[in-house]
Structures are given as structure tokens and as C-alpha cells.
């Protein structure tokens, strides 16, 4: 099995190298699952936390650009530490943290999340995951339309490609697709938790 040093892993993430990503998955997904398993039997929770952890790491790497280094920490410590805090954040937002923190042996002796993670980045990554999940549930035409228009492809060009009569027809179709996507999103329990948590933070 190929092994990578910490710097090679960071470089692999920068390049989205599939082999390095598989190495990260093989070596760290189970560690994240073990953390999540203490409070949740739902495997999807572990998978969500793992994805958010990678995306949070990408935020850090992109913000610091080429200067990024792990300093004293190993990649392993760094990755699992972020994953653990993201899981705590998710438990807090879902209200489960209050229930769990009185249970002994649950590894919640962590510093407050706000002191460690950028909560805005954590939220953005969760939103990205939620929107991508529901986008995948739409008809390919809808997914295509929304993705292309979000990436600022020209409406007239798109209408021509989709063989639609006019840009207006394209925008009508786009609206119908967005309506479906928004309907999925606002009924997603995690999205509702994020929004409710945001409101309670403001109040």
C-alpha cells in the first residue's frame, strides 16, 4: 500500500489526486466513524462529517495558499481533531449535544468550537453538501441547468444548447428546477437545524 508524507497529502488535496484521496479515505474514514459511532448509529452521519472535514481542510489550505503547513501537528492529529469538532458542532445544532455531554466517556472535553473552528466555514461546507445532495436528486436536465447557470454560463448560449425556443423558456425551466431544489432543501432536517441554530445565535 502506497504511503504518503503529510506534505504529499496536502499537495494531493490541492490537486484532488484520486489516489491520495483514496489513501485519506482508507486511513481516516474509520477514525471519523469511530468518533461518530459513540453518539450515532447512522453511518450517513460519519460520511457527512468526513466530507465536511476534508472541505474544511481545503478552506484552510486555500486561505493560506502555498504557505500552509501543519506546524507541530501531524496530518492525522489535525484531521481527526477537525473531524471531532465538526461532529460536536453538528450535535449542537441538532440539539443532541445537550443530551450527550452528560454521558461519561464521550470525549467532549474539547475546547469550545468557536475558539477553534471558523463556524462560518463549517456552515458553508454543510450547506454545500446539502445542496449537492439534493441537486443529485433532480432530473439531469435540471441539475445541468442550475449548475451551468450558477457558473454564469450565458442564458442565450444555454437556450441554444438545450434547443429551447428562447431565453425566456430557459428561465422558466430554470425557475421550475430551482423551485424543486429549494423545496428539497427547506425540508431537509439538517438544513432546518442549521437555520434554527443561526437564529438562536442571533437572539
Amino acid at each position, binding site marked *: *500500500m*502506497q*504511503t504518503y508524507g503529510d506534505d504529499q497529502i496536502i499537495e494531493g*488535496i*490541492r490537486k*484532488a489526486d*484520486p*489516489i491520495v*484521496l*483514496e489513501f485519506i*479515505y482508507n486511513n481516516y*474514514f474509520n477514525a471519523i466513524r469511530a468518533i461518530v459511532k459513540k453518539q450515532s448509529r447512522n453511518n450517513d452521519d460519519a*460520511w457527512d462529517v*468526513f*466530507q465536511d472535514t*476534508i*472541505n474544511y481542510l*481545503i478552506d484552510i489550505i*486555500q486561505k493560506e495558499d502555498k504557505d500552509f503547513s501543519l506546524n507541530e501537528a501531524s496530518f492525522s492529529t489535525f484531521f481527526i481533531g477537525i473531524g471531532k469538532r465538526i461532529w460536536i458542532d453538528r450535535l449542537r445544532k441538532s440539539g443532541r449535544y445537550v443530551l450527550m455531554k452528560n454521558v461519561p466517556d464521550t470525549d467532549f472535553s474539547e475546547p469550545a468550537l468557536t475558539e477553534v473552528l471558523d463556524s462560518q466555514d463549517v456552515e*458553508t*461546507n454543510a*450547506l*454545500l*453538501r446539502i*445542496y*449537492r445532495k439534493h*441537486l443529485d436528486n433532480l432530473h*439531469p*436536465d435540471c*441539475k*445541468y441547468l*442550475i*449548475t*451551468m447557470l*450558477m*457558473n454564469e*454560463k450565458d442564458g442565450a448560449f444555454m437556450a441554444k*444548447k*438545450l*434547443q429551447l425556443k428562447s431565453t425566456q423558456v430557459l428561465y422558466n425551466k430554470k*425557475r421550475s428546477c*430551482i*423551485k424543486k*431544489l*429549494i*423545496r428539497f*432543501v*427547506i425540508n431537509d432536517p439538517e*438544513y432546518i437545524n442549521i*437555520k434554527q441554530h443561526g437564529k438562536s445565535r442571533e437572539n
Partner: protein
Amino acid sequence: MENLEKIEKYLKGELDDDDLWEFKKSLHNDPQLALEVEAMRDMDVLQSQSLKIDVMDKLQAIHARKNRAQRFLGLPVRNAVAAALLILATIGGGLLLTQQGRHNQQLFEQYYSLESGAFGLRSGNTTLEKSLEQGLQFYELGDYKSAISLFDLSPDNLMARLYKGISYMELGQFDKASNEFSVILSDNDNLFLDQARWYLALSYLKTGNIADAKSHLAVIASDRSVYKTRAQKLINELENK
């Protein structure tokens, strides 16, 4: 969700004063509308996140593959098989860690480059199937998972097969990529033979199947392919390791 048009105008700051006043009042009184406005605003997360989306797609493919493999291992024998796999992985891992393995990976990185989807899109081919064209645009955006699902709708189109193969390479699924390129080669009379053979050779290189990689490279090197020089150089590097 009846107010989409109004929500869009509100978010773009295009409502006139009267409409804005009414809309804000509705927002205050209607929590559902307020949630819809937030969800529309949050849609912006889908913009400018190409690295994250690329990484998520690749990890999703790995996760799905591992889950399938795990389901395949029946519970009663799972521990025994896992132990056997661990032993094999340890032995195999030792071998792969050799200098040879690293050298091949470096060569792959050196020679592999992504084929532009613009070739298909700008070819002026007005008869391109809609799904293929959409697939190529997802491919150009780096959303390989979506691209593959659209290429799947054109199983008889060899251009779709080519870009599907390269998409699989981008997702790290080299066996699937090789299957796609092999289909193109078995057709034996099409415009994509050179590219298919080149990427097939690189897929074999990446997965350590050096003998097959070399045999395809030799065919390319002996032909008038645009990859001829690169193939000759790569053969030399593989032989002078």
C-alpha cells in the same frame, strides 16, 4: 413556492419601493417565505467551489465502491476474509512501496494530462446528442460524476465512451476507465483510437500493469499518432528505470 420571481428580484435589489415594503412585511409575517428566501440566498454556495466539488465527487465514488465491496463480503466470513485481505495488502503493500512503484506513479503524473472537452463541444458537430453535449459541459466544469451519468445515456457513441473513460480516470477508477477505452479500440475504425490507446496505456501504467502499458505504447510509437513522440519517450523511461 409561489414567489420565486419576487424573491429573485428582492435578492438582486430590483424591487421598487412599494413592492419592497410589501415584500419585507410578508417576510416578517411568513416564516415559510423567510426560509425560502434564505434557501435561495444559500444557493450561492454552489458557486466557485470547484476544488471541493471535485474532491467530493471523487470521495463519493471511493465511498460507493468500498460500500459495495463491504456488502459483497457476507457477515459470517467477513472477518476471515478481512484478515486474508489484510495479509495480502501487507505483502502487496511492501511490493508497491518499492522504488519501481513510485517511479511508475511519477511517470503517470508526468505524462497524464486532461483531454479538453472543448474538442467535442467546439467541433461544430451540430448532430451531437443533447446528453453528450451536457456531459461534456459537466466534464469541462470538473463534475465528472454528473458527466458520466450523462455519457451513460449515449452508450453507442464513442466520443461519449472516450470522455467517460477519462472521467473515470479523474475519479481514480482506472479499471472502469480501461473498459471504456477497450470498447473504443475493439471498434477499430473510429476517430478516437489514438486517444483511447494513449489513455488506456496510462491507466495500465497507473495500476502497475506495465506489460500491457508497454504493448499499447509500442503500437502508438510505431504509428503516426499525435502521441507517437510521447509514447516513445515513455517507453524509454520505463525501460531505463
